[in-house]
């Protein structure tokens, strides 16, 4: 039997895009004494979901992840060379400090920051990207998160991309994750993920982001095809829109009949 603490933590970690505060309010109403134990779950949620925070004293948003964590609740942003503290419960940033990029790949990070931002705005109406040293500075991580919340229409969505570029081996691998929640008189959740292995196209920042855009287009086209496959396949096989006879059931005639007899309607006399 799971402890109360791990139960409420699992609720936080499973919160849909844009609905963390609603989930926390529900936990407060159900188990007020457990709320104080949620700090590690908030941190895990924010780092996994690439939660965006507004940089103090700036209009820029930056994302929070394990890749830009400095420990002790502090994170850094490569673009503005700033570090900041994050309150995981309120998702607010504070105490900014200068934080020069300390990496053998500083130049690459700078040019990827420029190209990846530009490429992202070509496909995402709204997104936040982050480029950080990864794998003890042997590689570079390219992260992207795009959120679209429409609670007044009962839906929210999130797209997350994670790529690891290894400049010495020229390898480029990544994961794309998309989550959609629709909850008008119901609860429907779509979640999908795809691991990709790409060619880094020679390793220049422009080539890398071009390969990423190509792979993401391909994934989105495949996803659209998968919707059609499910609609035409599994969904149709579960319940027909109309019986084979193309007639609705004649309930008046159904009572005295048993299965196997022809009562399906559409009979001509």
């Amino acid at each position, binding site marked *: 039997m799971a402890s109360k603490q791990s139960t409420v933590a699992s609720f936080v970690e499973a919160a849909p895009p844009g609905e963390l505060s609603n989930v926390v309010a529900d936990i407060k109403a159900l188990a007020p004494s457990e709320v104080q134990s949620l700090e590690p779950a908030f941190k895990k949620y924010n780092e996994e979901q690439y939660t965006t925070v507004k940089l103090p004293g700036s209009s820029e948003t930056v994302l929070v992840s394990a890749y830009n964590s400095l420990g002790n609740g502090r994170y850094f942003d490569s673009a503005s060379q700033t570090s900041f503290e994050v309150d995981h419960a309120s998702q607010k940033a504070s105490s900014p400090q200068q934080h020069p990029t300390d990496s053998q790949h500083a130049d690459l990070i700078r040019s990827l920051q420029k190209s990846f931002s530009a490429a992202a705005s070509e496909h995402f109406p709204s997104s936040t990207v982050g480029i950080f040293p990864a794998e003890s500075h042997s590689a570079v991580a390219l992260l992207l998160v795009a959120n679209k919340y429409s609670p007044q229409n009962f839906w929210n969505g999130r797209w997350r991309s994670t790529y690891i570029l290894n400049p010495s081996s020229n390898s480029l691998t990544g994961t794309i994750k998309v989550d959609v929640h629709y909850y008008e008189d119901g609860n429907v959740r779509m979640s999908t993920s795809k691991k990709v292995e790409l060619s880094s196209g020679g390793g220049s920042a422009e080539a890398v982001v071009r390969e990423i855009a190509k792979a993401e287009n391909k994934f989105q086209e495949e996803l659209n095809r998968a919707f059609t496959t499910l609609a035409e396949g599994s969904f149709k096989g579960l319940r027909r829109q109309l019986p084979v006879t193309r007639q609705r059931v004649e309930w*008046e005639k159904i009572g005295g009949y048993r299965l196997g007899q022809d009562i399906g309607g559409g009979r001509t006399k």
Partner: protein
Amino acid sequence: MPTTSNSTELVGFALLYLIYFCGGDADLWTTLIILDDLLEILEEVDSMADPFDAALDLLRRLPPSSTQQNLTGIISLRPDLEEDLLSSVDVALTARRCPTSGRDYLCCDYNRDGNSYRSPWSNAFEPPIEPEDAAELVPGGRVRRMEESLNAGVDVYRELYYEGGVSSAYLWALDEGFAGVVLFKKTASGAGKGGWDSIHVLEVNEAATKRSAHYKLTSTVILDLGLSSSSIDNLDLAGNLTRQTQSDLSLGGFREAEVEQGHVVNIGRMVEDMETRMRNLLQEVYFGKAKDVVGDLRSIQPLSEAERDKAAHREVISKMGR
């Protein structure tokens, strides 16, 4: 709102307190301090959400594929909500084999007593329950006759629409009519996983004349679809939608058998209409809405190109208008 009555009680309590302890001697300052404390208490009471509503809201937000697990988790936090939650949260149905008829039937909270379930085919609980409990829980007379006839009808309907799967209907008597539940379950085989569970809960109020009745139907469909391929590592589309409808329908015939048959026909038609409506809705939400939201997050066509196309389109329109 349950908090309103709490608030009223608190106001009354505080006034009594003022009169009792301060009598006529209370100065204005003391009164104000007490009133201020009182207002704070009231605000706190009002901001506390009802735990049952919070549980339902939480289940509407967390992944529907883990509803059963989350329900168990909420009950472990709040054992006092167990009965209410089990009777109002729909989870995927399970099927059991009836030992008497050898046929499968579906289990839900409405044919359950402890760990025993009643088969609609044999009308007996399995494992058997105490005779005095059975006398209360096993339907007889007209309710059982209608239940048998509804099960026969629903069985035919299931074969026509589902071409397989399992169905069950359960009825029980109410003071002015009866209530019931009609259940369907189908699991997809072949490429991609899929499961459909529909749960139709009815309440039927009969007019004194038995010439007509008022039917209230609450339907939930739980639809779980999944795909895993080389181009998409995995795609999960899971969830549930609930809709309600009410209707006054006539009952033809004067004889009791005709009235009973009238109910079965009315219920059958309402369930058929509702399922057809909900199937269209599910199709729209699962394959239309989900795809649209992904398209809102990311555009396959470069946005600058899309903007140029739009501008060109606007120019054509304005030229045509000249």
